[in-house]
């Protein structure tokens, strides 16, 4: 697992209270991991903090799965 992916996964485990095995690349925050809209906003904020990036709202809307989060961060993290 890449460093970015493992950091993303641990944030998700912490905020959503899910097991590591559930946090697959394809897993959707809302459909598979039990997040509601506020949880999703909080996750995005945690990613911003952890990776020191700013994710604009229109980009954030496209981040709905673990894999999408990891790719976005890989492309944008300094």
């Amino acid at each position, binding site marked *: 697992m890449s460093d970015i992916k493992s950091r993303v996964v641990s944030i998700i485990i912490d*905020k959503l*209270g899910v097991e590591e095995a559930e946090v697959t690349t394809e897993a959707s925050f809302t459909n598979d991991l039990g997040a509601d809209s*506020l949880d999703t906003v*909080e996750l995005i*904020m945690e990613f*911003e*903090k952890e990776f020191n990036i700013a994710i604009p709202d229109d980009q954030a809307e496209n981040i709905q799965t673990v894999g999408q989060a990891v790719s976005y961060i890989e492309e944008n993290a300094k």
Partner: protein
Amino acid sequence: MELKRVVVTGLGALTPIGNTLEEYWNALLEGKSGAAPIQQFDASKFKTQFACEIKDFKVNDHIDRKEARKLDQFSQYAMVSATEAMADSKLMESEPNTDRIGVIWGSGIGGLKTFQDEHENFLKGDGTPKFNPFFIPKMIADIAAGHISIKYGLRGPNYVTVSACASSTNAIIDAFNLIRLGKADAIVTGGSEAAVNIMGVGGFNGLRALSMRNDSPETASRPFDKDRDGFVLGEGAGALILEDYDHAVKRGAKIYAEVAGGGMSSDAYHITAPHPEGIGARNVMIEALKDAELAPETVDYINVHGTSTPLGDIAEPKAIKQVFGEHSYNLNISSTKSMTGHLLGAAGAIEAIACIMAIKHDIVPPTINHFTDDPEIDNKMNFTFNKAEKRTVDVALSNTFGFGGHNTSAIFKKLK
């Protein structure tokens, strides 16, 4: 329209002297103090360095970690006490019509710690707002009632009353009124508060409201004692299930007591000081007695507001004498805040519970920490100093008064 009778069918308590109803009641009878040096933050620079905190409480023993994270402490306390009261009442086991069950909760402040944390976070940053999406729904005082309703699917009337230290008595009176008007079959009521934090202790210290007896926390809350020097901040929650009497009988519920009446008034005098002659306090007890259709002579026990402040403890006994006359010397009075500290918006809830348990067991819990009589207080009145007293308690009255001049009295009586 004929008003319905309202009874108490479930109780729950999370207090500085006991984390369940049973522990709380036993501690009240033992005369146990809940005061100790503050554990939740470093208070070494504060004028007051002690409080009545909840002890040995692990939130994750009661609430799933993910859920608990979204709840301010005051909501966590609300959930724990409401859950105990609901289980005690066995209400949900009867598969009730949940459209007719409400939640009316009380909190004086709401999520103060959440506010403090989010603001602190903001100040640490570069000015870019990065507020947590749960900040507002964690902090707002009404959210406790929302969470309780979501847990049980209760779709009846739902809100939180805010009247400082009178908050949860207002909640209880509102719940009582709605049920007797036929607007709900049962209501989860009570209140919770969690203000033992930097802003809470610092703020009340700023008001000069708190005792500063740092060398002896457990004797600091000493209502009606000559050397009292302010209240001791407490935290926690109390929950009561109020229910339409017929509804309760039909499902074979255990009944603790009947809610007899409630009174509400205002001092219209000063934002924090009570009226020196206790006019608002006098009026509110008169209103409650009228509402309950009870003569003053029927009251056996008054659980007073009695916060251990210099002014309040003089005004309230004066008001009692004006309302009860000669009977003031026959009834038992006690301030259980001598043991629990002052739970602000939750005070009315845990003190209503003390009244209800006094009725159930025919014992009056004491006012502990009495050392020296105050010549400004008529000590021929029986303040139940230092030791619980057995007596038949058919009728008990609970007073709570809040900053802003809000006064509330609730009366409970033995079911007959």
